[in-house]
């Protein structure tokens, strides 16, 4: 099962926030199925997720996480932390071991500090400072291993994330059709407008 096909997404942890970025191409084999696909999702007030893989699985899984996050908030009167959200996601993925969600996820957000977790289809969970996933991940990692430094500001990370997606667009068949980006700081989740992304580039 090769689930790395179809997308490039990255999550970069900085000094004051997390940047999530992805391309917009949804591919089906050698065709482009969609040119404006959503691959970055808000899950809760301070958490977002990216998905690479089966579109249906990603959308349903993110909806499930939103429901769990809302229920937790209502039942306990406190927000589900990003770490707890990622742990929960990992449990759900593992519970579907024999009928797995066909996707790779990154969950990023703000607890006491910015955090990001990568999740594989069987529930493997790893916290990291920079994460790339999808078919263009090797291209993105090439850039990140050279350029990423701990404690970078969100403004710098936006630029680096955009360059990652750009590089993958150039060298990966299944990546392309533009960039979408979201930034999560202690103040909340915000998606960059088309104009803002153009300015970053």
């Amino acid at each position, binding site marked *: 099962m090769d689930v790395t096909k179809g997308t490039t997404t990255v999550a970069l942890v900085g000094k004051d926030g997390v940047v999530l970025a992805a391309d917009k191409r949804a591919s089906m084999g050698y065709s482009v199925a969609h040119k404006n696909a959503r691959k970055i999702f808000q899950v809760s007030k301070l958490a977002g997720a990216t998905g690479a893989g089966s579109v249906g699985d990603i959308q349903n899984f993110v909806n499930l996480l939103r429901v769990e996050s809302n229920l*937790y908030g209502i*039942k*306990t009167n406190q927000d*589900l932390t990003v*770490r*707890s959200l990622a*742990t*929960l996601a990992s*449990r759900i993925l593992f519970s579907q071991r024999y009928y797995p969600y066909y996707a790779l996820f990154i969950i990023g957000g703000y607890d006491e500090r910015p955090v990001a977790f990568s999740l594989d289809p069987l529930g493997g969970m790893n916290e990291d400072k920079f994460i790339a996933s999808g078919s263009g991940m090797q291209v993105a990692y090439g850039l990140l291993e050279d350029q990423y430094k701990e404690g970078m500001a969100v403004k710098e990370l936006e630029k680096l994330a955009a360059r990652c997606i750009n590089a993958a667009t150039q060298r990966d068949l299944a990546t392309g059709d533009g960039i979408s980006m979201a930034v999560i700081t202690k103040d909340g989740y915000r998606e960059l407008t088309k104009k803002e992304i153009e300015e970053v580039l």
Partner: protein
Amino acid sequence: MAFRPRGIGYDMAITVFSPDGSLYQVNYASEAVKRGATALGVKCEEGIVLAVDKRIPSKLVQPESFEKIFQVDTHIGTAASGMIADARQLVERARLEAQIHRLTYDEDISVALLCKKIGDLMQMHTQYGGLRPFGASLIIAGVNEEPELFVTDPSGGYLGWKASAIGSGRTSAQDVFEAEYRDDITMDESIVLALKALKPSVEALVKGNIEMALIKDKKFKKMSDDEVKKYIDQLRE
């Protein structure tokens, strides 16, 4: 039940209301708690104090062979009154729920949420056929950000308290709390206050007869008999 006097026969099934709107089996379960040995809890800024009367039935019984204060998780403990065998089942569930929460969310369960889960279980035992209510109440206390203390009853209801007692000595203990509890009480003072509130309903306030536990720095810890004795002596002075 058409030809029976009003209110008779409604205690046969737990799921049948009496005409005045009560579930007799639930009331009877509360009665079991009222006759149980006294258990109490005091909340202070530093944490929680739990104390119970062990009510040792004979001097031939080994006092350390049974307990009425149970650790639920690292940061939560519970003191029970009523039918302790029933309470043990609730404690087992509480421990399980605490671990499930830890596994699912990688964090300590909140005392309020755990109490709600136990309350839900107790409520279920008042509404489904083939079950009977739990003949026990629990004082569920612990520390997340702040210390919290709840008391459940057999109907599944629960309330948060600053200091509360259950069991046969409830009234006398509650009187002591109402007279002497302060919001700025220290943990040392809380331990003495707990013993003072327990005193009227205990046969003898002596070593081995009282079981106590503290939740301090988010850690549950049983007090040794010698530690308890130290505070009993302090109360006597």
